[in-house]
């Protein structure tokens, strides 16, 4: 079974802090994604990565950056946290760029910015 692990289930940070959310997958997947999920807005793509050190912006990249130094790990960085970034953050992975494969999600990090 695919396992996508997000380092924290719950996180509370203060406005202006730099926040790191970590995600690790154990299936040698090429593609990794970061979403945020908000009531009434559904899942919105922040960034995705299709290879080590490769990244592309999603629909709502403002205020975020990402890092993928190793294939199994994809980090989301909130450069200067703001209250409107309070949300559920979901990491996902999928296997390759040739065969269309579904995404597998982690359990999410519920982030509160005070």
């Amino acid at each position, binding site marked *: 079974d695919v396992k996508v692990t*997000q380092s924290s289930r719950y996180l509370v940070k203060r406005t202006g802090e730099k926040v790191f959310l970590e995600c690790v997958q154990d299936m040698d997947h090429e593609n990794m994604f970061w979403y945020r999920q908000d009531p*009434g807005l559904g*899942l919105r793509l922040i960034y995705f990565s*299709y290879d080590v050190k490769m990244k592309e912006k999603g629909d709502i990249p403002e205020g975020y950056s990402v890092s993928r130094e190793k294939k199994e790990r994809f980090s989301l960085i909130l450069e200067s946290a703001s209250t409107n970034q309070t949300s559920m953050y979901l990491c996902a992975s999928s296997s390759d760029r*040739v065969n*269309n494969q*579904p995404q597998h999600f982690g359990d*999410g990090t519920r982030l509160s910015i005070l």
Partner: protein
Amino acid sequence: QKEVEQDPGPLSVPEGAIVSLNCTYSNSAFQYFMWYRQYSRKGPELLMYTYSSGNKEDGRFTAQVDKSSKYISLFIRDSQPSDSATYLCSYGYNFNKFYFGSGTKLNVKP
């Protein structure tokens, strides 16, 4: 027009009922179709995925795709209280384009 339309519910059924969940989509480029189950405060869990029109069955779950009508359904037979969750439909094309419905909240009453 939204890429994916899904009735948010909530849908409340008695235990043992057959549940039908539905989504419509507008983009004929979609190539593959998924259903996810999401329990409260957890991430979406992949239930079913399929690439073609027709039915795909897995235990009590059946996914049905009608590409000509741009319509997909998930049927749950003999529903259980443990099926109470939010169900998300999802569509994909290429390897990196995924769209999600807003989710239907299902409550199965004992």
